[in-house]
C-alpha cells in the first residue's frame, strides 16, 4: 500500500487536485482511499457528486465507542473511491490539530486503510501544529507532494511544510516533488523553478489554469469523471502514471526565510535543479483491475475501560493510571513527557499510600516511596514549538547515567498529546541493553485512570514479555493486585503463605513490586492467579489468554471463609497438592466456627443494609448469614472501575437489590427497611439515627476471616452501644468556624 500526503497552502486548490489525482489513479484499477484532513471537510466533495459526508470528528462527538461502525464514516464515491473527512471544530474554537490526531486514531482502530492500494491524504495548507503534521509522520505518508502556485505566500507555505518534514525525517527521502498549480501570476514559472531548484525538488507536474476545472466543479465532479479525454484529464492521468511508476523521493531541504525571500522576491537562484526522474511509466493492465467493493473494516477497540466504553465522564486520567502501574517495574526509569504538574500529581498519588504506611506502621514500600520517575518538565516554549527535542535530550541524558536502568518507559501527558508529540519516535534512541518502551496515553485523551492502567498493562506486556522462555514447574504469576490498596502486601503475604505450604513459587507479580526480567519471563509460569476479578481483572485475563495462551485459575484471591476453602482446593488440585491444601483448610475451619458461634449470640436476627461501590459482596453476606443476620437490602452504586453485581449465594435471591443506586433514596430506604446495621464505603450519619453505621472496605483483606472480622466489630458495637458525644458538637463547629 502506498500512502501519499498532499500539502499546500489553504485555498491553493489542493482538494481539487487531490480529488482529481484520486480519480485518475482509480482509472488504473487501483483501490483508492482519500482522507480529507481539513476542518472545512470538502476534500472529497467532487468525488461524492457534491454530497457532504459525516466527518470522523462529528461522529466521535455523537457516538459511543460501543456503536462505532466503519460504514458510518467511510463513504464510496466515483469509481468506488473511499472517501473520509476528518472534520474539525468550528472556526475559532477548540483545536483542529488535535482533531486530526483524534480522527486518525479512530481510522487506525478500524484498520480502514488495509483494504486499499493507495491512500491519499489531503492536508490543510500549512504544517500549523503537530496535529496537522500527523500525515507526514513516518507511519503514515511514504510519499509527499507540495502543491503551490507562484504566489509568494503559497511558496512560503510549501517551504514551511518542508521544514515540518525535515523535523520528522532529517535527511530521509519522502518528498516526490512539487505539484505546480498555475494561477497565471506574473513571473510564475520563474518563481516556481527558482524555488524548486533552491530546495532541490523536481516539479512533478504542472497543472494549467483551465476552465475545465470550473465546468467540472459546477457538475460536482472531477475532470476525469466529466471528460476522461480532455486535455486536463490527460494531465492527471500522467500524474497518476508517474505515481504508480514509483517516483524518486527526495529529502526535505527547506530554505530560511531570508533565503526564500532572496530566491523568490529577489529572484536569486539556488542550487542546481534536479531533473525529474525519467522512469518509464508502466502501463497497468486491465487484468490488475479489481472492482470488487471493499470489505467493511472491523473496529479494533483494544482493551477499553468501563468509562471509555460506556462513554461516561472520565475518572482520573490515563497518564496517571499508566504512571501508577509502571513504577512497579522497579529497575526501569519512568519518563513522564509532561509539564511538572502532571508528574507531580502522579507522584503524589503513587507516594501517598507509601508515606502513610510508613508513618502509621513503619512499613517501607520502595516502589511507592522512591519511584524512579523523571519528568521532561515541558515548558511554555515546548507547547509552542513542540516537545520532542526535550524528550530526546532527556532520554539521551538518562542513557548516560549510572547505574543504568534496565529500560526506559515513556508515558505521555495530555499537553504532549494535544501538541502532537509522538513519543514512539524516541524508541529509535534505545540501546541494545536498554530498550525504550512507550505508553502513549496522551493524558486523558486516551481515557480515564483505568484506561491508563490497561494501556500500561498491555503495552508493557507486549513490548517486554518473551514468548520463548522455558516452563518452570510449580510456579504461578499473580495478576492485577491493586497497588494503591493498603492491604496489597499483607494480602500477598497471605497468598504466598498458602502457596509456600503447597510448595508453589511466585514467578512474576504483574504489575506489583516486580522487575523487568521477571516480566520478560512471564510465560514460564504454568498458572496465573487473578488477585481481583472485577472489570479490569477480567480484561487482563482475556488479554493474556488471547495473546499468550496463558492459563488462569477461575476464581480471584479468596475473600471470606468459603471462598478461601474453594480457592485452596482448586489450586491444590491443579498442582496435585490436595493434601497440603486440606491441612490449611482444616486449621482455618476450626477457628472460623468457634468465632462465628460467638458473634451469632449477638447478631442473630439483626437486619443488615448495604450501600456500596463494591460489586462482589459474598464474603460479607456469607458471614452475615452464618451469624444469623437478615439481609434487608443491597444498594450498589455506580463505580467507574467495575460493573455487574454478582453473587453465588442462593440465600439472597429474594433480597431487594438495586444497582446504579440513587443517593437520594438513602434516607427513605433507611426509614422503610429499618436496618440495625448500615454498611457503606464512607460512614454517614444522615438518616441513620436508630442503626449502627459502619464502613465496608473497597479492597477487603483476603483469607478465611475477612467477613468474620467485620462481624466481630459489629457485635462489639452492639454490645457496647457506644456512639461518642462528639457527634453532638456539629453546631459548635458551625458557630466557631464560619466557612
Amino acid at each position, binding site marked *: 500500500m502506498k500512502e501519499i500526503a498532499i500539502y499546500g497552502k489553504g485555498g491553493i486548490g489542493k482538494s481539487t487536485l487531490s480529488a482529481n489525482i484520486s480519480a485518475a489513479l482509480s482509472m488504473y484499477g487501483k483501490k483508492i482511499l482519500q482522507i480529507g484532513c481539513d476542518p472545512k471537510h470538502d476534500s472529497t466533495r467532487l468525488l461524492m457528486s457534491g454530497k457532504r459526508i459525516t466527518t470522523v470528528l462529528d461522529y466521535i462527538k455523537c457516538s459511543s465507542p460501543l456503536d462505532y461502525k466503519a460504514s458510518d464514516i467511510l463513504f464510496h464515491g466515483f469509481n468506488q473511491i473511499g472517501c473520509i473527512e476528518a472534520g474539525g471544530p468550528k472556526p475559532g474554537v477548540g*483545536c483542529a490539530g488535535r482533531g486530526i490526531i483524534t480522527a486518525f486514531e479512530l481510522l487506525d482502530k478500524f484498520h480502514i486503510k488495509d483494504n486499499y492500494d493507495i491512500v491519499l491524504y489531503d492536508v490543510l495548507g500549512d504544517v500549523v501544529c503537530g496535529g496537522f503534521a500527523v500525515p507526514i509522520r513516518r507511519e503514515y505518508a511514504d510519499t509527499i507532494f507540495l502543491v503551490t502556485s507562484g504566489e509568494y505566500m503559497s511558496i512560503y507555505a510549501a517551504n514551511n511544510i518542508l521544514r515540518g518534514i525535515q523535523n520528522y525525517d532529517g535527511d530521509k527521502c519522502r518528498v516526490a516533488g512539487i505539484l505546480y498549480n498555475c494561477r497565471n501570476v506574473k513571473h510564475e514559472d520563474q518563481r516556481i523553478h527558482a524555488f524548486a531548484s533552491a530546495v532541490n525538488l523536481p516539479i512533478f507536474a504542472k497543472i494549467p489554469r483551465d476552465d475545465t476545472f470550473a465546468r467540472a466543479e459546477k457538475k460536482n465532479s472531477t475532470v476525469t469523471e466529466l471528460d476522461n479525454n480532455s486535455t486536463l484529464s490527460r494531465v492527471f492521468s500522467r500524474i497518476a502514471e508517474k505515481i504508480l511508476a514509483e517516483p524518486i523521493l527526495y529529502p526535505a531541504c527547506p530554505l530560511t526565510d531570508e533565503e526564500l525571500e532572496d530566491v523568490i522576491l529577489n529572484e536569486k537562484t539556488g542550487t542546481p535543479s534536479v531533473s525529474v526522474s525519467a522512469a518509464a511509466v508502466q502501463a497497468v493492465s486491465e487484468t490488475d483491475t479489481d472492482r470488487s467493493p471493499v470489505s467493511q473494516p472491523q473496529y479494533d477497540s483494544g482493551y477499553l475501560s468501563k468509562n471509555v466504553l460506556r462513554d461516561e465522564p472520565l475518572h482520573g486520567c490515563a497518564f496517571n493510571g499508566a504512571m501508577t502501574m509502571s513504577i512497579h517495574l522497579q529497575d526501569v*526509569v519512568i519518563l513522564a513527557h509532561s509539564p511538572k504538574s502532571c508528574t507531580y500529581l502522579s507522584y503524589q498519588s503513587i507516594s501517598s499510600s507509601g508515606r502513610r504506611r510508613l508513618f502509621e506502621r513503619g512499613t517501607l514500600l520502595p516502589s511507592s516511596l522512591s519511584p524512579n520517575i523523571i519528568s521532561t518538565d515541558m515548558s511554555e516554549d515546548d507547547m509552542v514549538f513542540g516537545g520532542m527535542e526535550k524528550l530526546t535530550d532527556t532520554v539521551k541524558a538518562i542513557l548516560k547515567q549510572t547505574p543504568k536502568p534496565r529500560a526506559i518507559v515513556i508515558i505521555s501527558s495530555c499537553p504532549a498529546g494535544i501538541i502532537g508529540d509522538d513519543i514512539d519516535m524516541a524508541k529509535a534512541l534505545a540501546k541494545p541493553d536498554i530498550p525504550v518502551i512507550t505508553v502513549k496515553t496522551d493524558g486523558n485523551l486516551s481515557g480515564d485512570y483505568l484506561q491508563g492502567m490497561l494501556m500500561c498493562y498491555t503495552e508493557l506486556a507486549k513490548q517486554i514479555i518473551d514468548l520463548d522462555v522455558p516452563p518452570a514447574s510449580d510456579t504461578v504469576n499473580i495478576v492485577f493486585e491493586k497497588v494503591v490498596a493498603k492491604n496489597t502486601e499483607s494480602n500477598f503475604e497471605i497468598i504466598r503463605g498458602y502457596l509456600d505450604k503447597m510448595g508453589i513459587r511466585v514467578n512474576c507479580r504483574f504489575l506489583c513490586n516486580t522487575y523487568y526480567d521477571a516480566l520478560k519471563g512471564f510465560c514460564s509460569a504454568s498458572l496465573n492467579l487473578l488477585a481481583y476479578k472485577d472489570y479490569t481483572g477480567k480484561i487482563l485475563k482475556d488479554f493474556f489468554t488471547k495473546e499468550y495462551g496463558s492459563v488462569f485459575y477461575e476464581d480471584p484471591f479468596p475473600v471470606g471463609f468459603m471462598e478461601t476453602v474453594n480457592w485452596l482446593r482448586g489450586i491444590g488440585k491443579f498442582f496435585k497438592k490436595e493434601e497440603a491444601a486440606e491441612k490449611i483448610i482444616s486449621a482455618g475451619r476450626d477457628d472460623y466456627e468457634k468465632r462465628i458461634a460467638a458473634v451469632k449470640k449477638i447478631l442473630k436476627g439483626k437486619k443488615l443494609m448495604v450501600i456500596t461501590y463494591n460489586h462482589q459482596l459474598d464474603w460479607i453476606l456469607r458471614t452475615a448469614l452464618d451469624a444469623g443476620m437478615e439481609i434487608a437490602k443491597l444498594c450498589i452504586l455506580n463505580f467507574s472501575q467495575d460493573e455487574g453485581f454478582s453473587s453465588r449465594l442462593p440465600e439472597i435471591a429474594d433480597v431487594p437489590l438495586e444497582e446504579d443506586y440513587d443517593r437520594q433514596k438513602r434516607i427513605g430506604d433507611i426509614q422503610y427497611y429499618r436496618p440495625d446495621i448500615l454498611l457503606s464505603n464512607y460512614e454517614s450519619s444522615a438518616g441513620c439515627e436508630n442503626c449502627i453505621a459502619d464502613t465496608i472496605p473497597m479492597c477487603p483483606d483476603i483469607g478465611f476471616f475477612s467477613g468474620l472480622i467485620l462481624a466481630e466489630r459489629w457485635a462489639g458495637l452492639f454490645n457496647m452501644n457506644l456512639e461518642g458525644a462528639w457527634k453532638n458538637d456539629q453546631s459548635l463547629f458551625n458557630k466557631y468556624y464560619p466557612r
Partner: protein
Amino acid sequence: MISPYLTSITPDSFSGLIFGFEGIKNTMVLLNGPTGCKFYHSATVDNQTLRQMEFDPLNYPELWYFGQPRVPCTYLDKRDYVYGSKDKLTEAIRFIESNMNFDLMVIVNSPGAALIGDDIRDIAMDEIQSTPVLTVETPGYSRDIWDGYSAACCQILRELLPAGPRPANTGTRKKVNILGMSIFHKYYQGDCQELTRLLGLCGIDVSCILCCECTFEEIRNMKNADLNIVVDSVYGLEAARLLEEEYQMPYIVCPGFPVGFAAAESLICQVCSRFDLDPAAFVTESEKSRARAYIYLSRLNSLTGLPKGAKFAVHGTCSQCYGYASFFICYFGMTADSISVLDLPKDNSRPSPHYEALCRLLEETSMEDSLKKDILSTDAELVFADGNIIAKLKARHLDFSGIEISMPTLGYTDVIPKTHLGLSGGLMLCEQIINGLMFR
C-alpha cells in the same frame, strides 16, 4: 534498585493558582479541565482547610464534584480538546450558580485546556453577572508553585481591590497585612495564629492574611492597613510590590522564614519601630519562651553534650532554608550537613538576597559545602523536609529523625494548630529537636 533520578518533584504554578484562590473563604474554584487534574487539588485543599461536615461522596454529585467536596471540574475529554470546552463550562457554571453559595468564582484552565484557546472569560461573563468572576487562561507550564500562587494574589488584588486612593487608618491600633502565607504551607493555621498573637502583644492588628483563609471582605479592606509584611518572599513579594506601586503601601520582607526566637524578635521589633510602638510585652513573652527552652536544652546538654554539633539537613525554598538553618546554627549550635534549596538562582541571573544571606551564613560558619550536598546523600541526624524526602531517605534505611516542614505530609493529622514560626514555633522546634536526637 537504581537510584532515584530526581531529588524532589514539586508542584508547579497550576497548583499554586488553585491553592491561592482556594485560600479565600467561600470562593468557588472551578477547574476547567479533566478530573485527573482535579482529584489531588480537591483532596489537598479539603485536607488543609476542612470545611465540610462529612466525607461521603454521595453528598458531592458525580457532575461536577466527582465525590469530592472541593474544586469542581468540567471533566474535559478528548472531544472537548477538539471542539472546545464551552458547552461543559457553561453547564457547570449554571449548575454551580443554581446550587452552591459562593462570594467569588474563579475559573482556572488546566494545562491541557489552556491549549484549546477557549475564551473562558467571555463564557463566564455570559453566565454570571451578580458575583465577581476571575478567570485564568494559562496556568503556566512547569513554572514554580509560588509563581502560580503569586499570580493568583496579584490577579485578586488587581481585579478585586476597590479603586481609589488608600484611606488613612484613623483607628487607635495599627494594622498590617501578611503576605506570602498559603494554605499549602504545612502549618499555616498555627503560623497565622502565632504571627497574629505576637503582633497583638504590641497593639498591632492583622487586617488580612492574603489567600490564606482570608475572607473576600478582608481582601477588599486590605488598603486600610498601614504596612504589609512579607513572610515568605517567593510567595508574597510580588503582591507587596503591586500594593506599593498601586496604593503606596509600604512593606517589609522577612530576611527568611521567621523561624526561631531571634527571627521573631527581629521581625516584631522592626514592625514596632516603624510604628513607634513599645515591644515590651512581646519581649517579656520572648524571654519566657527562651527560658523554657533553656531548661530542656540544658538537661539534654548535660546528659549528651547535644544539641551542639548535631548534623542537620534542610530541604525547602531559599527563604525556608535560611530561616531554619540560621536558627539551628546560631541558637542550637548544630552543623549543616546538607542545605537543599528548591529555588536556586537560575543561570546568569542575580541570586536573591535570601540566597546571598544563606551563603553568607554558611560561609561564616564554614558550612558552605552543605549547599553542594545532595539531600538524598545526607547522613544528618535530623532532616527537615517534606514527607516525600523523609520517606525516600527512610526507604534507604538511613538512621535519622525526620521532621516535616512542608507538604506533602507523611500522614500526621494536626488537630491542634502547630507552628514553626515565632516564639511558639521556636519552642515546637526545640521540642522536636530534643526528641529527634539520639541520646548517646
